[in-house]
Each structure stands twice: as structure tokens, then as C-alpha cells.
């Protein structure tokens, strides 16, 4: 079965899903699963095969012929989209059920289908005009998914911020594609554009326009609130796949367009910055979905580091280490998609069980929801890039690429050395953040009543989580499996790198991982058994002799992150309000801490206020006095007259 047929089936199912989602949940679910499965089949056909799929039809839309292309790069992303799309659909059945959300659940299903469809189109369309259409439609459907719960002002604000930020990116893309079209004389996209050196400056437009969607560090302002306020399966989709659309755009267009020499340096710089600061922000958060969102900023940074390395390698004579960095980036796209979706799903089931995103209101949930706890722990290990899970594999590849640059003493080393060190810092901070998150949510004693009343989530939610966990584990244990796929994608990014054999000892790594996993199981079982045979007695946590500890005496997330936040307070700018105990009969003391989104609240908001001030000043001219209106007309004549008199010859 050729990918064309499969994609047709997929498209058909998804379109039907948009309609059926409003009425018939079961039909919708089956359709979505079938459709995503078909698309997955198509992308695997391309990835495992050796030829790309291309289709130039005679159907014209907007005066342009429909032109679909599925090469390895887009297939890699498409596969991820399918996996997350299907698992999200299954998860939503339990998480966003019609019983709980009679109004928004059907809409959510319809928009979900359209979102998946549009992202698939973005990945396959190879005509600028149609690409823009699909891109914008995908943005809009994502908006409606974010604001499913639009009764809540916070959700509306987050949704609007997302829409506004995306529109900035879209308009930049307008400029990008319009310039391309007016330069090429047609809207076709493709490797053919590589030859025209004149197009190099467009790289910056692409980096900005897609960077907004990808959440590249200074452009990530919309991301935390949107991911935190969206329904969790949507957050998973946004963070796992939608961000990757931006990454895809960046990769696509610096693969297809000539890049300016500075590109690699800038990208790797942005990546390192984003990796470190993103995770620093994450460490400081108290809302666990915001924490996950910032962590996505970090992971996009990691991807960009790899990509930047690859760009540098290309500009410095196709050095082989660039291939490793690119492979790492591509694989990290996949890995982040998997474990971040897993984490958002488990976050969702915590939210579902307790109704709060505040870590300081949770705790001790492992007893109520052991499965979620375990899966979250696994996801936390993966996202912290710890062996033997998938996160480590991709970061390891990126490291190898950078180390290759360093050991070969290429000029790129001057970017690679700081990148490696920042990446290591980011890794350590990620570990800290997720130790904090896991501990605050699942360990210790429940801090509030809501946390006490928590319950494990149903099988519709658990199933997808387990599936994603398996994906993480498999990629981690058998990394050699994914190498051919990744290298195919790398080849379609840069043909010179298409050769198949792996320069990295992935097989050995895989063996070590397997051995490690077995040893862990063995030793853990042994120790558990030993402890049981020696006898286990349960007792109160030792509390320095204070006999009645309350749950509120536990270490809080804020104090856990205190040291790290102190180091980054120059960018985090935490807002603290503190009332100490004073006097003989002290009033109740409290200490509150808020982590602002610095770039948004300290940089963009002031600029926006400036614009609004101008606007309100201008609006005062429309004061309703007719005499002034006539005066404006006269002024218009005068101004144009002057223009004609003096602007005569340029």
C-alpha cells in the first residue's frame, strides 16, 4: 500500500472525525485512531524505505496546484504527530469526558481532529501558499483547543496571548513566503531553493517566525500560560508536537534555503541560552504544568543546540560530527514528544484527581495513584536525560556531536564548549526540577484535603500513558533501532549525510542500558526481599524529637528550589511578600512568592503599555466635535499639498 493511499485514508478519517466528533464519540475515536495509524504507516513507509513520496495534483486551491511531499524529515515529525494524536484522543475520552464537559467535549473532539489534520498538512504541503493556510488553520484550531474552558478568564487570557504571539509569527511568515514567491515567481517550496544565494537573509525571518511557535527562548512568552491553562491532553499535544512544528519549520527552511554564515552561531547560542534559562524558570515554578511548560523551552533549546551544531558543521566543510549533532536533535524531537506528553498526561490525571496545579497543595499522592506516580517518575528520569531512558540517548548524541567539534578543534569549538557546559548545567537543573516536582506531588504526606481525596485515573487515561512510557523505554534500551530512521531524516536535511552506518556506538550503549536495567531490577528486587526478610517496621518519620509533625511542616517546593532560584534571581525576578512574626502576640505570618514570566512582564508588557498610551492619546482626537473634523479635512489637504509640492522628486 503506497503512502499516498494511506495518507488519503488518514485525511478522510480526520475530516470525517471533525464532523463525527460533534455527535458520536466512539466513531470519532475509531476514526482518529485509524487515521493516525494510516498516517503513521505512511511515514514509516517513507522512513524505513529509501524513497520519498511526492504528489503533484491538478487540483488547484487559491490558484496553486496542490503539491504534497513526504520526505524523511517530515515523516519523522508526522510519525510523532500520529502517536501523540492517537494517544491524546484516547486519553481525552477519560480526561475530558462528555459527562463532565457536555458542551466543550464535542467541540474539543472536532478541533482535535482539525488540529491533527492541519499539522499533518503543514508537514506534507510543499507549496508556500498552502503551507501558510495549513499553518494558520493549525494555529487557530490550537487556539480553540486551548480555550475549551473559556468560562475561566485565565484560560481566555492565555488563549489570547497564544493567538497574539502566533499572529506575530504568522505575519513574519507572510513576509517570508511573499518574498520567496516574488523572488522565485512561484509558490513552490523545495530543495531547489538551495541554490539561490540571494535568499540567505530569509533565514532570519524563518528563525523568528517559526521560533515564536517553537518557543525559542526570548520568544517563548506565550508558552507557559497556554500550556498551563489548556486541558492536559491539549498541553501534551502543544508541547509534544505543536512546538515541533516550529522546529520543523526552522529545520525545513534552513535545509531548503541557503543560510547566512552567522546562522549556526546564533542558533546554537539561542539554544544554549534557552536550555539553561528555560530550565531555571522551570525549577522556580510552583504550578507543575507551568514547570513542564518551561521544561519544554529547555528541550527546544537542546534541539536547537544540536541543529546549530549541524549548521556550523555544514558551513565548516560537512564535518561528520555535525551529523551526530543533527541526529541528536532529530531524535530529541521524538523523545521530547514522547516523555513530555507522558508527563503532561500524568499531570493531567493529577489535576483530574485533585483539581489543583499548585504543588504546595499536593503531596503523598503515590498512595492514591501509584500508577501515575510510577509513570511520572519514569517520565521524570527520561526528561532529566538519565540513562537508561530515551532522553539520555538523544542528549548523548548531541554531546558527541559537540565533543566532536571540540576534539577536532574546529572553529565551531568556541560555540561548542560553552554549549556543552550549559547543556550539562541544564541537565543538572532538570534533574533538580523533576526531583522537586515528583517529590512535591507524589511523596511525603498530603498537604491538603483535596490531595487526600485523590483517586487513580481510569484505564482510558492510563493506557496511553503506559504506551508512551513503553516508547520512552524502548528508544532508551534499543537506540540502534531508531538510528536508520534518524539518519534518513538527517539525509533529507543535508544530502551529504545520508549514509547509513552509525558513527556512534549505539549498539554498545543499548547493551549497557539493557544490562543496567536488568541489574536495577535484580538489585532492587533483592534489596526489597532482603528488607522484607529482615523485617520492616513502620514508624513516624524522624522529626528531631518533635512528636506530632503536621503535613504543613514538610519541605515546600519553594524552599527546595530556594538555592537555585537565588542563583538565577537576576532573570527570574521573584516577587516575594513576607510577613514575619512580631511582638508578643504575633499576627499570623505568611510568605508568598510569585514567579513572573520575566520576558513578558518586564519587557513586553511595558512596550505594550507604551503603544496603548499612544493609542489612547490618538483616540482623544475623535472627540465628536464637528468643527475639528472639518479642520482635519483641511489639514489633510494641507499635508497632501505639501507632499505634492515638496515630495515631488525623490
Amino acid at each position, binding site marked *: 500500500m503506497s503512502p499516498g493511499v494511506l495518507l488519503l485514508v488518514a485525511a478522510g478519517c480526520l475530516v470525517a472525525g471533525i464532523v463525527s466528533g460533534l455527535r458520536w464519540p466512539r466513531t470519532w475515536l475509531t476514526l482518529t485512531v485509524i487515521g493516525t495509524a494510516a498516517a503513521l504507516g505512511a511515514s514509516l513507509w517513507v522512513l524505513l524505505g529509501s524513497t520519498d513520496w511526492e504528489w503533484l495534483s491538478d487540483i*488547484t*486551491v*487559491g*490558484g496553486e496546484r496542490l503539491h504534497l511531499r513526504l520526505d524523511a524529515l517530515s515523516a519523522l515529525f508526522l510519525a510523532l504527530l500520529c502517536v501523540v494524536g492517537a494517544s491524546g484522543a484516547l486519553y481525552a475520552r477519560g480526561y475530558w469526558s462528555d459527562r463532565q464537559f457536555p458542551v466543550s467535549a464535542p467541540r474539543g473532539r472536532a478541533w482535535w481532529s482539525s488540529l491533527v489534520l492541519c499539522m499533518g498538512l503543514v508537514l506534507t504541503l510543499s507549496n508556500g*501558499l498552502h503551507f*501558510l*493556510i495549513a499553518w*494558520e*488553520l493549525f494555529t*487557530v484550531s490550537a487556539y480553540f483547543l486551548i*480555550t475549551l474552558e*473559556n*468560562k475561566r*478568564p485565565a484560560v*481566555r487570557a492565555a488563549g*489570547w496571548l497564544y*493567538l*497574539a504571539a502566533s*499572529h*506575530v509569527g504568522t*505575519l*513574519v511568515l*507572510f*513576509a517570508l*513566503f*511573499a*518574498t520567496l*514567491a*516574488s*523572488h522565485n515567481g512561484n509558490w513552490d517550496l523545495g530543495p531547489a531553493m538551495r541554490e539561490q544565494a540571494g535568499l540567505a537573509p530569509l533565514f532570519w525571518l524563518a528563525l523568528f517566525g517559526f521560533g515564536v511557535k517553537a518557543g525559542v527562548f526570548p520568544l517563548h512568552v506565550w508558552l507557559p500560560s497556554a500550556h498551563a491553562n489548556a486541558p492536559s491532553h491539549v498541553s501534551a499535544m502543544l508541547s509534544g508536537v505543536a512546538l515541533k512544528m516550529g522546529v520543523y519549520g526552522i529545520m525545513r527552511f534552513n535545509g531548503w534555503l541557503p543560510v547566512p554564515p552567522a546562522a549556526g552561531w546564533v542558533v546554537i547560542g539561542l539554544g544554549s541560552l534557552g536550555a539553561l534559562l528555560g530550565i531555571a524558570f522551570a525549577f522556580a515554578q510552583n504550578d507543575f504544568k507551568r514547570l513542564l511548560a518551561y521544561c519544554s523551552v529547555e528541550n527546544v533549546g537542546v534541539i536547537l543546540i544540536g541543529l546549530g551544531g549541524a549548521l556550523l558543521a555544514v558551513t565548516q566543510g560537512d564535518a561528520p560530527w555535525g551529523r551526530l549533532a543533527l541526529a541528536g536533535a532529530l531524535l530529541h524531537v521524538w523523545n521530547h514528544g514522547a516523555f513530555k506528553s507522558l508527563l503532561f498526561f500524568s499531570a493531567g490525571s493529577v489535576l483530574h484527581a485533585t483539581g489543583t496545579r499548585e504543588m504546595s497543595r499536593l503531596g503523598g499522592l503515590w498512595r492514591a495513584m501509584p500508577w501515575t506516580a510510577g509513570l511520572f517518575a519514569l517520565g521524570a528520569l527520561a526528561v532529566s536525560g538519565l540513562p537508561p531512558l530515551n532522553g539520555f540517548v538523544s542528549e548523548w548524541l548531541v554531546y558527541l556531536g559537540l565533543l566532536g567539534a571540540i576534539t577536532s578543534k574546529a572553529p565551531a569549538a568556541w560555540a561548542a564548549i560553552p554549549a556543552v557546559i550549559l547543556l550539562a548545567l541544564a541537565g543538572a537543573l532538570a534533574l533538580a526540577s523533576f526531583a522537586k516536582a515528583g517529590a512535591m506531588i507524589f511523596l511525603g504526606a498530603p498537604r491538603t484535603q483535596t490531595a487526600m481525596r485523590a483517586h487513580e485515573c481510569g484505564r482510558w487515561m492510563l493506557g496511553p500513558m503506559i504506551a508512551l512510557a513503553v516508547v520512552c523505554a524502548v528508544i532508551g534500551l534499543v537506540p540502534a533501532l531508531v538510528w536508520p530512521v534518524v539518519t534518513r531524516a538527517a539525509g533529507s536535511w543535508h544530502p551529504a549525510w545520508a549514509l547509513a552506518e552509525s558513527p556512534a556506538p549505539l549498539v554498545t550503549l543499548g547493551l549497557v542500558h539493557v544490562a543496567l536495567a536488568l541489574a536495577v531490577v535484580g538489585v532492587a528486587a533483592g534489596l526489597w526481599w532482603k528488607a522484607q526478610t529482615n523485617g520492616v517496621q513502620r514508624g513516624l518519620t524522624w522529626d528531631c524529637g518533635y512528636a506530632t509533625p503536621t503535613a504543613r511542616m514538610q519541605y515546600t517546593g519553594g524552599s527546595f528550589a530556594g538555592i537555585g532560584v537565588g542563583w538565577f534571581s537576576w532573570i527570574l525576578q521573584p516577587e516575594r511578600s513576607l510577613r514575619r512574626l512580631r511582638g508578643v502576640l504575633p499576627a499570623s505570618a505568611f510568605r508568598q512568592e510569585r514567579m513572573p514570566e520575566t520576558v513578558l512582564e518586564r519587557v513586553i508588557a511595558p512596550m505594550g503599555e507604551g*503603544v*496603548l498610551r*499612544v*493609542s*489612547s492619546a*490618538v*483616540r482623544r482626537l*475623535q472627540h*465628536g466635535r*464637528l468643527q475639528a*473634523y*472639518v479642520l*482635519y*479635512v483641511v*489639514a*489633510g*489637504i494641507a499635508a*497632501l*499639498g505639501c*507632499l*505634492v509640492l515638496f*515630495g*515631488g522628486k*525623490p
Partner: protein
Amino acid sequence: MISLLLIFVPLAGAALAAAWSDNRTRPWFLPSVSLVHVVLCFRLLVVPPEVAPDAWLGFDKLARAVLPAVSLLFFVCACYGVSYLAVRAERSNRVFVAALLAVLGLLSAGHQARHLGLLWIATEAVTLAAVPLLHFNGTPRAFEATWKYLLVGGTGIALSLLGSFCLGYASLHSGGSGDLTFASLMAQGAGLSRPWVLIAWVLLLVGYGTKMGLAPMHTWKPDAYGEAPGIVGAILAGGVTTVAFTAILRVRAVVGAAGEGALADRTLLAIGLFSMVVAALFLLGTRDFKRMLAYSSVEHMGILTIGAAFGGIGLKAALFHVWSNSLTKGALFMSAGNIRRAAGSASMDEVRGMAMITPRSAAIFVAGMFAVTACPPFGPFFSELALVKAGFGSGHVFAIAMLLGCLLFAFFGITRVVFGIVDGRPRPAMRTGGKRFVETAGVILPPLALLCFSLWLGLFTPPLLREAWEAAVQQLHPAP
């Protein structure tokens, strides 16, 4: 011949309607007459008639490129008008219907006028015929709006007359026989006296710009659109402004023939960008969704002007945008009218959660909002993208950057207002108070149809239309 019918059928209809006694059946004149108009118009679109070069009136290429859009818009508005007037059965619609039909006839005349004076008379007459439409609601606010419309518009009209005289006078200098058809004016070309042509250009640009609603002559627009019934707003924004735009285009052609095209384009670009900036700034702050539509219309007039300034492809994109903008705006005005009627107010301080009260209108309003802010797959996206492309093609990078910036701020303003009205929980008063507004097919289908037209226009632009725009560009920028 048919081109004359386009004018006289509606006028006759107007006369009949004025004479018609029954208030309940009178509204049916609107759809029936405009249906005839649409049919004739599209017939002419398909089989363009021969126009004698010295004819004063004629369905020439420019009229062919624009008038069908107006006719289509008017027809849909007319269909909406029936159900609208049924809702407003308490007041007599004699004047309203007659004036509306007269407007249609005069619009056709204005689009087809190939003579400076005739064009001016038609525009003037449209202005006057629109007056009773504006104060149909009969509220003091409506009268104030009408008064401002009349005085600012009148001033503009007077200026455009003065400009016409100047142009005529310029033509006398090269021994012109005082024949003021655009064809002969263009034929005189460089013979026209330069100072008088330039004065004429400024005056005509300001005069017709006032009708079109270009900043800073736009001041009447928010008041008029804010107080007039939805369809009137739609016809003003989609029809009357279009006449003014075509007028400017015709004059621009003459100025170009006189060898001052570059200068004229620079002025067009300047005033267009200024309009966009002003509109964007106003949109950022406005809290009334009908006034918002007015400012958005100002913005789109700016876009049209900028397109005209780019010349060639840009002009073609502008003509495309005339179509997509009129149709989309129509949908917005009608759905806004529904919401306004259901909510009893147009201010986002008082209106909330209309998605629950008037779900269909709200959905159309949101869709139209996305359409008018150039989100695909609706018409404006394609036309504006073509315009941006043309701008880059002709090297106006700075202008395009500014245009995109204005589009961005306009988007911020518009989405803020629209979502503020559609989302959230409705005020309890709105759920219970007053007589409920029913979303009948009559008030839902017309805007829906317009949206579909806009969609179809963008996705599957008929080659016929492309060819028509192409021809119009040829007429205005004759290849030397």
C-alpha cells in the same frame, strides 16, 4: 443598453417602492430588484459589452472588475433586509426601501461613469440617498451621526467638485474642448497643465477619500456605521466606499497619463499607510464592536490605497481585495447587527458571552473576524498576501513592513473586542430581560452565504474574475 438597465431598474424600483402602500410587502422589492440587478451584472461580467471610448456611461473594464461585487453584496443584504425590516415592523420602511434601491441605482451609475462630472454627480447623489438610511433608527444618536456624515461628507464632495473643475481647467490649457470623459483626458496626457493637475489630484484625493473614509477624513465613519442598521453599514462599507475607490483610480489614471504617476502613487502610499496606522491605533482602544467595524473598514481602505499605489500587480491585488473585503465585511456587519439587537448594546463593557445567547451569529462573527484579519482560507488572506507579494516585488519593503505592523495591531484590537463579546458568561440581565431575539434563517443565512462567497473567492478564485481584474489594470495602466 443593459448597462443603463443596471441604473434605471433600481431607480424605477425605488419609485415603485415609494409609491407602494403596504408596509409589510414593500421590503420584497429589495430582493426582487437586486436579483434582477445581480443577474444583469453577472451577465455583463461574463459577456463584457463594447464601450464606445467617448461614452459618458458604460460598463467598462473597471466597472466590470468591481461592480459585480457590489451587486452581489447588495443582493445578499437585500435578502437580509426583508427579515430585518420584518423585525422592525413597527416603523414605516417606505423611505428606507426606496432610498436603498436608489442607492443601488446610483452606485451602478457611479461605477459606470466615464465622465468626470457624471461621476461626481453620481457620488453626490449616493451620499444624499444614503441619508435617510442612516437615521432610520430615529434616535438622537442616529441624527447626530447623520449630521456629521452629511457635513463632513458634503465638505468632501464639495472639494471633489472643486478638484473636478481644476482638472477640467487643466484640460483647457492644451486646447481641450472641455470634454471631461476620462478617455479624452487621458488622451490629452502630458498636455494637461501640471500645476492644475496636481491641485486637482490633491482635491479629488481628499474629496473622494472622504467618501472612502481614508484618515484623516474618516471621522464620520465610526459614528455613521455605529448608528446605522447593519445592512446599511454593510452597503456603505462595501458599496459606497468602492465607488469612491474606483473614482480615485480613474483620476489616478489621468494623472498618470499626465506624467505625474509616480508622485500620485507616493501620495496614495502616504495616505494609505497613514489610514492604516490611525485605524490600528483606534482599533487598539475601541470598546464598541460596531465602531470597531468602522475602523477596520478604514484600515482596509488604507490597504486598497496602498495596493493602488503599488501599481500593476498591486492594483490587481487591490481589486481582488475590493471583492473579498466587501463580502467579508458584509457578513461581519450583519452578524454584528444580530448581536447588537440581541444584546441591546454594542459596547464590550455591557455585552458578554454572546456565544451562549446567539450562538450562530457569534460563530459567524468570530469566523468573519478571522476572515477580515487575513486568516486563511478566506478571501482577504489571499488578496492581502498577493498585495504583500506585490509590494516586495516592487521593492516597497518599508511600506510592507509598516503594513504588516498595522495588520498586527489591528488584529490585537479586533480579537480583543470580538472575544470579549463572544466569550465568557452573559450578564444575567441579558438572559432574562426584554423580548428574546430569535436567530431565524432569514438573519443567519445571508451572512453565512457571504462568508461562503468569501471562502470560495479565496480558495477557488474564478479565472474569469482574475481576467477581469487583469483587464481593469490594463485599462488604468495602459502599457506604453
